[in-house]
């Protein structure tokens, strides 16, 4: 642990201020609480909000897990985990079940969470109405008066123009049947996990300086129409490594012929399954219709070539 910094990098008064904001957020599920975001040692867009939330709640006996798009080993996750190790000396882990605080960018772990756990989301844009109504004064009024017709208009328009609701990530939800909330850019696949989750879910947006929360066991409903109900993504294939057919899969293109390897996005979930003995096909999937075949060169064209 680097003793040049205060525990968790932020000073105690700042942590108190953020905890007060968190308390208010928990008291009003889904409501965006403004807070005095501090300058962090990395740029906006890299998780400053989530880090400030984690820094304010982390204690000596916590165990921290950090994931980015489900993986513990990407640059972002590694750096944040190292940041906390350095400024708190707190134990870190890659195992979801062993963590008391999980900070995440853009995914919810596949493993079910418990009442003893807190999930901290990194949020780029906390305002779900931002693209439809850019005026902040207007969106504040809309949230205050629960005037969310505009979001339904957007969903209607998607269906009218595209045949289906087009949002596949950052899919808008209604928290506690009151506040329209952005779940952060998690895939809509993860939305159902937010509903009645035993864990405390905290959301931090550093650049926009907002904190919001979903307390344990809170109703979270993804917006939809009665005759166009909310649906999660499904794959035709299972994870090539562990064989899971119910997790969110990353799709990796592995050669020029368009072969794809489908692998669990949640790296800990996949490795737990493999340790338990599950095995996948270990094979990339060849998808011939996806990419056009390479045209064979005509004899005349080839003649001029050296």
């Amino acid at each position, binding site marked *: 642990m680097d003793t040049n910094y205060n525990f968790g990098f932020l000073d105690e008064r700042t942590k108190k201020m953020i905890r007060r904001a968190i308390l208010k957020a928990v008291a009003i599920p889904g409501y965006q609480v403004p807070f005095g975001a501090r300058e962090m040692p990395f740029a906006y867009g890299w998780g400053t909000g989530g880090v400030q939330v984690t820094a304010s709640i982390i204690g000596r006996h916590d165990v921290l897990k950090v994931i980015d798009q489900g993986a513990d080993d990407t640059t972002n996750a590694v750096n944040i985990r190292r940041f906390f190790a350095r400024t708190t000396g707190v134990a870190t882990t890659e195992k979801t079940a062993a963590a008391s605080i999980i900070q995440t960018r853009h995914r919810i772990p596949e493993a079910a969470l418990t009442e003893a756990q807190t999930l901290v989301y990194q949020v780029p844009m906390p305002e779900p109405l931002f693209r439809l109504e850019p005026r902040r004064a207007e969106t504040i009024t809309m949230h205050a008066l629960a005037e969310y017709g*505009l979001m339904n208009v957007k969903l*209607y328009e998607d269906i009218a123009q595209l045949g289906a609701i087009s949002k596949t990530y950052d899919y808008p939800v209604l928290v506690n049947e009151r506040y329209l909330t952005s779940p952060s850019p998690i895939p809509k696949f993860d939305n159902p996990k937010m509903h009645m989750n035993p864990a405390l879910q905290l959301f931090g947006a550093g650049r926009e300086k907002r904190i919001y929360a979903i307390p344990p066991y809170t109703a979270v409903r993804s917006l939809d129409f009665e005759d166009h109900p909310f649906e999660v993504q499904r794959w035709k294939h299972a994870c090539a490594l562990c064989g899971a057919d119910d997790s969110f899969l990353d799709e990796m293109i592995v050669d020029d012929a368009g072969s794809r390897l489908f692998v669990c996005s949640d790296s800990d979930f996949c490795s737990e399954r493999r340790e338990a003995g599950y095995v996948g096909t270990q094979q990339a999937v060849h998808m011939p219709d996806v990419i056009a075949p390479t045209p064979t060169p005509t004899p005349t064209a080839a003649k001029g070539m050296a």
Partner: protein
Amino acid sequence: MTGDLLLSVRGAGKQFMQGNRLRWACRDVSFDLYPGEVLAVVGESGSGKSTLLRLLAARLGLDAGSVHYDVRGEAGADGGPGRSAAGLVDLAQLSEARLRWLSRTDWGFVEQHARDGLRMNVSGGANIGERMMALGARHYGKLRSEALSWMERVELETDRIDDLPGSYSGGMQQRLQIARNLVTHPRLVFMDEPTTGLDVSVQARLLDLVRELVNQLQLAAVIVTHDLAVARLLAHRMLVMKDGCVVEQGLTDRVLDDPQHPYTQLLVSSVLTP
């Protein structure tokens, strides 16, 4: 045109700072409006008629007087606090949330320029459906069929339902605006120069449509216009405004055929007839 009083205005007025002096944009306006009555507010530029319309629709705050409306389901329906002796509610006592809700349900407001009254970045169908969605309608198919039926009613081609309003002509945009306002069956519609700027033949069609709808739906309306022919065609009653004051009011054909006030006589005699 029987029924209880719908809108009651007493001494309404609005001030503005002009330079370093306070000027009354309109003052001392009083009238009662009943269900199914159409009132035209007529005057030239600067008469205060548009300001009056915005005062009535609670888009501006009153500086003098009061506006009472028969708000359905408002607390005090039994004559308790909030309701006047006539049973109407003082709009100044309503919360912003309630006023906004009223504007979206029991009232309509047709803007002079359709662009100000429509969402230009979503389709015609979405525009018509918005009020219903704001009230909790969540069945896409029903929203769509309701939108289609309203488009027929205002004589819009139903195959334009998914087109953006920008691709509609001016007359079509106005009709879309009307449909968007009427889906919630408002009892009172405010119209600000609904036909100004449109081609003459388009105006005629639009006025016909408004006449039809007012009759069919028993709408009460306050229509601001500088065109006396529009007033004669649509309105049962007229208010003539000059320099912020009402100089004459009464039955439309009486005011137009037997004007008493000098200004009304001037207006009526100035109208060109082809």
